[in-house]
């Protein structure tokens, strides 16, 4: 029996619209099946969003679905199903939750598993895998899925970017990586054309890309409003408000969402309304996916006067101007440059500070810009590709920047069996006491 937690309060009214947004994305996959549109099992933040949108392919986001299952505390049956076919619990639980769901559906001859959260997700007509350099499950997840969805074609690409090397000038390498990414994107288009039987409308793709760029800029402008003291929105809400950028990039509704959020945050600032009253400590969510079943922990922080005006997680964009992208009329080339520069534009700053690395340089920039007193990292055991470097980042931050209170939380993204609320709150309490000790020392 699923354990439904009581609703989580959100600081902004705009964030309260997100469940409807997510539900809309899920139901779009079901509606697409009725309308004869193609559904693609797709992966977030990999440069393929705009291609799908321009070709009327409806994305079915496995990560989103697993996150919803976790938030509703209803993932266990899918995790157990995957485990029954020897998928280890130590694998990515986004993947195993989704695979378990698809396994049950296939066993039922395509019928939606009973009680699937928010009506479930449509069966894909294709799977677009993408390793995104860092995430190995994105290679194996599509292949594992095809083991059960035998008739569904899989296409796996990878959007590489120059790996960080303090002794190498990445500027010399970028063109090569952009060329590689463009080839990957071109092949993705060809694959999609083959499955849909339609040709890409390149003008439409260019318009979608232009809208994405506008959304990136607006997203950053809106999130920068959170620099205000007290901050009008914290990471607890941002784990919701990332949805349009992450899952609906290249759509008007995503852009419109941030227009509304921008307006609301400006009003809150004008009214002096903050997340915590009083706001005692400002924190950065420095790395890690959240425990989707325990988003209430952000409110636990807020209750102690601690707010998160900024987070690295799901801030998957940057102001376009800052990326200094070369001019091109080829939308795929633009996507490729935007992708590569999104990762490399912290490299120069990192090279200037001995011992630094780009990920830490980014954290330092946010700490300075958002005036943060401490940093919180979340290490999710099943997401090793991203979370393996978290302790290193925390160590480097302390070493090269300054002595700053750091909390490393441990848990998972989907698997609730790793979570202990009392222990987590005890750690948060102790961290808040540490923040206070630092504050008192600074005053003296």
């Amino acid at each position, binding site marked *: 029996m699923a354990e439904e937690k009581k609703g989580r309060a959100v600081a902004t009214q705009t964030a309260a619209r997100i469940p409807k947004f997510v539900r809309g994305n899920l139901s779009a996959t079901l509606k697409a099946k009725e309308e004869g549109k193609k559904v693609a099992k797709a992966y977030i933040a990999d440069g393929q969003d705009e291609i799908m949108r321009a070709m009327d392919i409806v994305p079915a986001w496995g990560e989103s679905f697993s996150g919803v299952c976790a938030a509703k505390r209803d993932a266990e049956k899918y995790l157990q199903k995957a485990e029954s076919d020897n998928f280890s619990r130590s694998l990515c639980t986004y993947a195993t939750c989704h695979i378990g769901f698809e396994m049950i559906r296939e066993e039922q001859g395509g019928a939606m598993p009973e009680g699937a959260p928010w009506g479930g997700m449509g069966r894909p007509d294709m799977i677009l895998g993408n390793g995104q350099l860092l995430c190995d499950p994105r290679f194996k997840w599509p292949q594992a899925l095809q083991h059960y969805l035998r008739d569904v074609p899989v296409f796996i690409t990878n959007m590489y970017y120059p790996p960080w090397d303090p002794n190498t000038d990445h500027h010399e390498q970028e063109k090569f990586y952009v060329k590689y990414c463009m080839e990957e994107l071109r092949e993705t288009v060809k694959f999609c054309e083959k499955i849909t039987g339609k040709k890409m409308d390149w003008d439409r793709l260019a318009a979608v890309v232009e809208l994405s760029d506008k959304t990136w800029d607006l997203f950053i402008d809106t999130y920068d409003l959170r620099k205000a003291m007290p901050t009008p929105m914290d990471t607890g809400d941002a784990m919701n408000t990332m949805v349009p950028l992450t899952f609906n990039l290249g759509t008007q509704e995503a852009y419109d969402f941030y227009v509304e959020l921008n307006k609301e945050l400006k009003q809150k600032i004008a009214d002096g309304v903050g997340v915590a009253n009083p706001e005692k400590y400002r924190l950065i969510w420095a790395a890690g996916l959240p425990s989707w079943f325990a988003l209430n922990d952000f409110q636990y922080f807020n209750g102690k006067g601690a707010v998160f005006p900024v987070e690295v997680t799901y801030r998957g964009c940057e102001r376009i101007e800052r990326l200094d992208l070369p001019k091109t009329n080829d939308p795929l080339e633009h996507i490729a440059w935007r992708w590569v520069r999104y990762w490399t534009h912290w490299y120069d700053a990192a090279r200037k500070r001995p011992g630094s690395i780009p990920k830490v340089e980014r954290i330092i920039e946010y700490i300075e810009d958002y005036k943060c007193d401490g940093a919180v990292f979340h290490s999710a055991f099943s997401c090793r590709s991203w979370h393996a470097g978290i*302790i290193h980042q925390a160590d480097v931050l302390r070493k090269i920047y300054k*002595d700053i*209170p*750091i909390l*490393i939380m*441990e848990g998972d993204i989907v698997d609730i069996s*790793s979570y*202990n609320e*009392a*222990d987590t709150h*005890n*750690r948060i*309490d*102790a961290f808040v*006491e*540490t923040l206070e*000790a*630092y504050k*008192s*020392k600074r005053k003296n």
Partner: protein
Amino acid sequence: MAFVLGIDLGSGYSKAVVCEGGMVKSHAVMPSGGNYKDTARAVSERALQKMNLSQSDIRYTVATGYGAGMVDFADETVTDISCNGAGIQHIFPAVRTLIDIGSQFSRVIRVNDEGKVTSFIMNEKCAGGSGKFLQIIARILNIGLEEISALSLTATKPIEFTTGCAVFAESEAVSRISEGALPADILAGIHNAMASKIVTLVTRIGLEERCAITGGGAKDMGLVRTIGAELSTDVLVADEPQITAALGAAIIAAERISR
């Protein structure tokens, strides 16, 4: 001078300390059992009785530990991490790194010259580095916890355990006993396994001299020596290491009434 009370309700043992003017006047330790509420009353009464006091003589009470929220007569609750910091500063002001080995958790705490916590880290959800490991092994060796320390110091050939997991180590220990291994060597092997986990935590947070060990685990000199050897440092241990957090709670209580 006013009396203050610190209570630490741990998952294994509960501790109470009565202080007056910054001096420990009495203390008590007892198993926590399953009813934290009753245990809190019982352990504090035991400490108070030694001074012929009652709860009404206490100006301020701070509760800490796993069951702190169950102490209905406390004026305030403070985390055991902060209380350990305050407690160790009172006992050994030079300590900057504190290893606390409790029944359920082991943690490494960095403190500044005021006893304020600057950083901390806890063992993951695993009994391998906590006092629970010792309790499991004591049970299968059929010895009391208080016997572990002296017995382990007589070890000549510590058993090398192939696992750091308390559950698997239990069955491995049973196998070794049936093979004729000596209890002292098994205990020394367990100490090595525990020390390895604890030292990993210290490495993650960084060791700053001086270093002390507190909690029930600090009463086990075999474990203390093993950790000290692994860290290549002399670790400090208080006369009553188990009451450090309760003492810290009492120190914080005294700070509150002096404001």
